[in-house]
């Protein structure tokens, strides 16, 4: 139960962060990707702010043997730069550039009366399902 409450708190802070940084505005995201237009570098600073806090916090957390409420840290140990990783990332970037939505802002925006986000999330799930078929994991 405590884990679920902690997840709710973490999710709420994440959603606040997406809204405070205006990443729930897909046009602002597209303006970051549009380096030949009226470029808006804000997204780079969102990542910088997030990385500064997360990198510091993660380093401290991992000095402990296990998380406060769990038996282990669920962190992948893979290091290979294989084809699924790079092809997947490339296709994700195309979809991101077509829409201005990555998964977090798309999901959060469903609460902002944004019908576009509901369509987006439904199509993201269709994509999950198709990728699972490809991997034989559905």
């Amino acid at each position, binding site marked *: 139960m405590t884990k679920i409450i902690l997840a709710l708190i973490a999710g709420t*802070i994440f959603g606040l962060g997406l809204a405070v940084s205006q990443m729930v505005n897909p046009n602002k995201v597209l303006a970051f990707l549009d380096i030949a237009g009226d470029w808006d570098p*804000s997204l780079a600073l969102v*990542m910088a702010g997030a990385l500064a806090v997360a990198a510091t916090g993660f380093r401290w*957390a991992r000095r402990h043997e296990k998380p406060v409420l769990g038996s282990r*840290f669920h962190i992948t140990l893979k290091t290979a730069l294989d084809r699924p990783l790079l092809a997947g990332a490339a296709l994700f970037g195309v979809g991101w550039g*077509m829409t201005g939505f990555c998964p977090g802002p798309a999901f959060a925006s469903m609460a902002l009366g944004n019908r576009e986000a509901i369509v987006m999330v439904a199509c993201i799930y269709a*994509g999950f399902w198709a*990728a699972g078929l490809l991997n034989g994991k559905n």
Partner: protein
Amino acid sequence: MQNFTPVSALLGGALIGLSAFILLWFNGRIAGISSIMNGLFAASGPNRYWRLAFLLGLMLGAAIWQQFAPAIPTLRPHYPLPLIIVGGFLVGFGTRLGSGCTSGHGICGIALLSPRSIAATLTFMASGIATVYLLRHVLQVSV
């Protein structure tokens, strides 16, 4: 760069980093939204409930801020729906095939100095920039 908002970007980013820290420190989990979304239906039992709680929080946090903040323009009534449908599918397909998105690779993975996440982030940034360039400046779709 007239729309550059450095202060709110850094502040919002710090909140996202704090969220990732809390989820890892307490629950031992990575705050990667695409895998949390996928796991919502792929996992079962307790592994489903924490994901559901996180995703409900995601919506709650955004909704809370909208009550206090000067309205952020989030709606695009005339945005071409086919772009959303095809683009949404590619976001889902690509993030599952590539094991992560902006948060899982771009923030958590890079914070852990994972070479896979650094490569993935450079790749989706490059293809995102190329896609917007193609749409706006070559095909001149007004988006």
